């Protein structure tokens, strides 16, 4: 039995019984990285000695009767989340040799729960992308077919979990960046409600949309991770003082009477027939178990992508203004600060990042602010209202996570607008401030994973996870593993 292929709950059982040690499972993960990561490129960096010493501490704590929801579990971290003493680069050249002087709140929480914080995983630069092709470190590869993208921006996080290079990982989601790679790589990806998890220590892309969340091998693990990272934080004024319920004890398997909405506007032209078919079967499976399936309407769906790419880029242009080589990161010298700023940013940012900063600056500029940014914020209200209205009739909304399975590396890099269209089903969740999860629901004929997405009410993660878990337990997808070696 490969220890690195266990789930958090399977591992915890064996750790508690003394059958295995945290050192052994951490070693198993490190060995796995040795054998597969050269090709997959999920990990940007890791420190074996440091990881093993954390594992040893966890083993000692356990031996002395100590406890922790994630005690001794190796968890990989997206390169946008601050870990004290570890490099933090957001897969960009512009952060240079930056080493984080502090822990993000989620990292503090993981430490308190006893986790082994290990390794930094690849992403699209500054979380801008849907394929992890926009990384300074080159693309990560889908473990199910290494010619294919793993999705993005949390591509490394998804690959590391799907390829059993770690037991679970953290990613971030602004327009689908946890759920989409989870779908394309065949693992579970949860985007908590905006405000559920603290953003303190997450390098900001779009401050009104970003959320940190777990990528895991099954829904039970997702609930365990959420339990640890959720909660209001005095250092994030956008985190909401909503009680954190017990997510794990609500995984009852019962969906009788749960009302599930199918948005009629999601039958888009670009929807792959295999994806459509596979997701229908997932919905049927829930109906068989007693859920009620109801058609709903989200009339402003067609405006979601345009709305997102105005709001997100506008916020990004403000958030990325800080990267200019003054207080941290790489610096290209100039004869005055203005020149230093433009040379540093010119040399340090990748193309997609530049594209979005320019776009965002434009929509915020005087004379255009009302026509673009303000207008987009109004459409955002309409999108949110669509959902809140739908949630009067249903408890959850079901759909494919992505319109197609993974495309090939290089296939869409020359067409950013095409790339943006792949976010159609995930984007509204961030705009409307809801929670969403992607669970594996099958494979394409080429053997590529397909994801099934559920979206829930704000702070509705209990019902969301309960339904996702019930579906998952009625199938065997989580036990399928990619053939590597």
């Amino acid at each position, binding site marked *: 039995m490969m220890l690195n292929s266990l789930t958090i709950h399977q591992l915890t059982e064996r750790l508690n019984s003394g059958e295995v040690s945290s050192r052994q499972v951490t070693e198993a993960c490190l060995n796995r990285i040795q054998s597969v990561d050269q090709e997959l490129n999920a990990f940007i960096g890791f420190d074996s000695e440091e990881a093993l010493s954390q594992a040893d501490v966890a083993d000692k704590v356990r031996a002395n009767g100590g406890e922790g929801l994630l005690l001794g579990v190796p968890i990989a971290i997206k390169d946008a989340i601050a870990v004290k003493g570890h490099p933090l680069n957001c897969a960009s050249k512009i952060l240079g040799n930056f080493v984080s002087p502090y822990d993000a709140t989620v990292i503090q929480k993981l430490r308190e729960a006893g986790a082994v914080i290990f390794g930094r995983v690849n992403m699209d630069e500054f979380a801008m992308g849907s394929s992890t092709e926009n990384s300074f470190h080159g693309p990560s590869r889908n473990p199910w077919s290494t010619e294919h993208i793993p999705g993005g921006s949390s591509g490394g996080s998804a690959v590391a979990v799907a390829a059993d290079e770690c037991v679970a990982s953290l990613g971030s989601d602004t327009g689908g960046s946890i759920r989409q790679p989870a779908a394309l790589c065949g693992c579970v990806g949860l985007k908590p409600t905006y405000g559920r998890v603290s953003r303190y220590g997450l390098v900001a892309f779009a401050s009104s949309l970003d959320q940190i969340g777990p990528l895991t091998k099954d829904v039970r693990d997702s609930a365990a991770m959420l339990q640890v990272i959720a909660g209001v934080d005095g250092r994030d004024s956008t985190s909401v003082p909503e009680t954190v319920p017990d997510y794990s004890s609500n995984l009852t398997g019962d969906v009788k009477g749960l009302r599930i909405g199918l948005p009629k506007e999601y039958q888009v032209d670009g929807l792959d027939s295999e994806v459509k078919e596979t997701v229908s079967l997932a919905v049927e499976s829930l109906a068989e178990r007693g859920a009620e399936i109801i058609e709903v309407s989200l009339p402003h769906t067609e405006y979601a992508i345009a709305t997102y790419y105005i709001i997100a880029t506008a916020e990004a242009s403000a958030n990325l203004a800080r990267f200019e080589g*003054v207080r941290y990161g790489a610096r290209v010298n100039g004869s005055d*600060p203005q020149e230093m700023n433009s040379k540093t940013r010119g040399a340090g940012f990748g193309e997609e990042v530049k594209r979005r900063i320019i776009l965002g600056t434009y929509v915020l500029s005087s004379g255009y602010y009302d026509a673009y940014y303000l207008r987009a914020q109004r459409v955002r209200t309409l999108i*949110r209202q669509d959902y809140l209205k739908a949630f009067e009739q249903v408890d959850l909304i079901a759909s494919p996570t992505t319109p197609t399975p993974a495309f090939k590396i290089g296939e869409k890099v020359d067409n950013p607008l095409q790339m943006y269209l792949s976010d159609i089903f995930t984007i509204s969740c961030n705009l409307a401030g809801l929670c969403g999860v992607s669970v594996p629901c099958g494979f394409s004929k080429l053997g590529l994973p397909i994801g099934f997405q559920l979206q829930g009410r704000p702070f509705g993660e209990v019902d969301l996870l309960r339904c996702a878990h019930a579906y998952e337990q009625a199938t065997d997808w989580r036990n399928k593993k990619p053939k590597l070696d």
Partner: protein
Amino acid sequence: MEGVEPTAHAVPLENVLREDELGVSLSHEEALSNAPKTTNGLFVVPKIVE
């Protein structure tokens, strides 16, 4: 679009404030530790004014 309020962020929070209590913060050294150029505990940039 008439009468539609813009949504800046989708949470029911306004004017989130806390007491001005002293907490942990980065030390001077930590704050400067990633700077490309420093001197006397200050960040150094090219000359701003002639």
